[in-house]
């Protein structure tokens, strides 16, 4: 599967080249990863449901990452950074689990 290979290639490139993100960006990296994971899980579920569209995937990926980072950044400025980041992680986690459950149902039952 090409996308799977692309993921592996991305991971390997990232680990080998070890690009360092700028300091002001570093606190938002973990949440960006979780948001991107949410988009990826949604995409896998869409593939299994046969409704996948790569434009939708890219848009949801980018917007998830940007919005999650923006929310956490805003929270830091307002002083509720920890709470907002917790909320974002909780919501993304629920969505990831929901998509994962649907994927599991599709893979192991259908």
């Amino acid at each position, binding site marked *: 599967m090409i996308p799977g290979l692309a993921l592996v290639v*991305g991971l390997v490139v*990232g680990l080998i080249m070890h690009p360092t993100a700028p300091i002001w960006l570093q606190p938002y990296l973990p949440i960006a990863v979780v948001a991107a994971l949410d988009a990826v899980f949604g995409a896998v579920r869409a593939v299994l449901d046969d409704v996948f569209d790569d434009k939708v995937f890219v848009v949801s990926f980018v917007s998830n990452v940007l919005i999650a980072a923006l929310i956490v950044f805003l929270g830091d400025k307002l002083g509720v950074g920890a709470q907002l980041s917790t909320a974002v992680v909780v919501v993304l986690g629920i969505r990831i689990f929901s998509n994962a459950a649907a994927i599991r149902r599709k893979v192991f039952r259908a």
Partner: protein
Amino acid sequence: MLDRLVGKDRRPVPSQPPAPTLHSLPLLDNLLKDALDPGYADAAARRRKQVAAGYPHHRSYVYAGLGLAALGILAAVAIGQQQAGAPDAARARTRLVNQISVLTSNIDLFTKQLNSLRAQTAFARDRELALSKTGTELAALVRSLELDTGVTPMSGAGLTVRLSDSAKPIAGGSTRDEGRIQDRDVQDVVNALWAGGARGVSVNGIRLTAQTAIRTAGQAILVDFRAQLSPYVVTAVGDPDQLQVSFNDSPVARRFSTWTQLYGLGFSVSRSKSLNLAAAAPIAPRHARRLAPVTSSTGAPSSPPSPSTK
């Protein structure tokens, strides 16, 4: 109930199990329902319309591939940054541990130097004192005083008394003191040994002098301000028979023989033919009196001058 989950335009929502709706919490409802982005369903409907209208549409995974590669790079960067940051606490700890070991070895080095300087001083003093008769008497007095006050190591036959906390778990939390050896227990044992004729006593290797305090601090017993934990080994050098007889008759030994059964405290007495007591740190003298100039036989001062240490 299924039609409630279908959107307003009656889009089919695939792979939705019939889930109970929480009327008071549409938030969770929407969260679970929208987990699969509705954009996918829209795009699929559009694609189906295109295919039905005759436009060819080939699915491309290019953008998906790029997105996943971006995710891979993002994850690698985040993980790498996390790994670089996490050992900060471990690095600080290893730095502290290194400092501790360096300073401890410094202390050992300085203690060795101190001991050798003390030995040199004692040698020089003895050499000076040996030049006159008063001086020789003085030197003998100093040597016996040093032995009694614990400044020099002592070895010989003697008695070892071992005290240990109760091994049973203490009911009622750690506020119950009955299962723990107290400072007065160690004090009583030490005093009984002195009274029995011990010439030198040490607790857990710390030689007792006239100024050594045995106190409880929290859960540890401080001997000469150094915290000691159970078991407490009290070593006494002296005549083993006399020591054993007088110690076994002492009140503290009789008390402990009941306490070992009541509270489970550890108590054992044993003789030994060769015991070594370490030297204590010398007490810094606070008063000194200058010796009158000594002559060999006449003119000896009326009272033998003695270095008084406090």
